[in-house]
């Protein structure tokens, strides 16, 4: 079901044109990479403050209220360019081990953000000026640092076909995680 939809998506003419384009694909990819600095970069600065490693004397709320809007702009650009890159070769990414690891980490990072804003952030006025925020806030910052770094690393490694389904034999766990079908998976 998912496979056949993605196969259909990858066979649309725009998807093929995007994948084969000489400049458009690299330009989208480069935008995706350069805007890492805005999105992950500003997110990491806030995380470092939450963990208590940097920006002593700057209230935590200053990051949430003033810097986070810029993180969100960066996120929107990452999502837009990322979806376009996925659209250029949906089936290949769907079965790519690193893509799956990246999605999993994105999910954990997302849950962590939700938890932070729904629970931890509510009491920010109490610990706004405290150099070391409460344990829950520090854990949220650390999880964020680990997940976004992991997303960057696994995202970069998607480009390498070490574990792709059409390169066999692979260890059984790789084929299981990537859901490689019995036949070689077409790009």
């Amino acid at each position, binding site marked *: 079901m998912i496979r056949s939809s993605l196969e259909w998506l990858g066979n649309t003419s725009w998807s093929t044109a995007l994948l084969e384009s000489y400049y458009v694909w690299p330009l989208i990819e480069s935008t995706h990479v350069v805007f*890492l600095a805005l999105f*992950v970069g500003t997110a990491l600065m806030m995380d470092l403050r939450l963990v208590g490693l*940097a920006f002593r004397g700057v209230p935590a709320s200053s990051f949430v209220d003033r*810097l986070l809007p*810029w993180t969100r702009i960066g996120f929107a650009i990452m999502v837009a360019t990322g979806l376009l890159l996925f659209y250029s070769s949906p089936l290949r990414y769907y079965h790519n081990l690193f893509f799956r690891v990246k999605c999993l980490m994105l999910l954990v990072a997302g849950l962590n953000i939700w938890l932070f804003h729904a629970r931890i952030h509510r009491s920010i006025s109490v610990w706004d000026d405290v150099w070391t925020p409460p344990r829950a806030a520090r854990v949220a910052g650390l999880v964020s640092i680990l997940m976004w770094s992991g997303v960057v*690393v696994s995202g*970069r490694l998607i480009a*390498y076909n070490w574990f792709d389904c059409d390169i066999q034999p692979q260890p059984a766990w790789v084929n299981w995680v990537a859901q490689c079908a019995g036949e070689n998976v077409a790009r």
Partner: protein
Amino acid sequence: MPPDDWIGFFEWCEATALGSAVRNSVYAFPLIEAVHLVALCVMGGALIMVDLRLLGLGMKDQKPGDLATLARPWVVGALGVMLSSGVLLFLSEAIKCFYNTSFWVKMVTLPIAVTFTFLVRDPRVMKRTLSPMQARILGSASLLLWFVVAAAGRWIGYS
């Protein structure tokens, strides 16, 4: 493009033990690239939050000079990681880089960006009275310079 006789130096770089080690490993280059990118995030974030502030955006409750002082160790640390990982990547494919226009764009803009960041866009400079216009020039010059460095760096892989 550089003078032709510089190629000897690039051939020497590519033949170094470090260059060969990275080139002959399946995993080294991609993993060093990944480290290079994570450091890009740290350095980019530490630069951008101060540059935005210089432009009158972002963390307006803080003074630019104070923010820049606190961000500086992260810029320096991440730049150190970027330079060392970058040198390793370069050594593994120095001859390819010699013929690569994006590489030369990066090699010209990178020293300019580094010099500008440490001599001009310095926390001590920001702590002196800057007119709003001077602050805006400082912030946009920094964003522009580092953008070109980053974009040219990514483009080395395509050309």
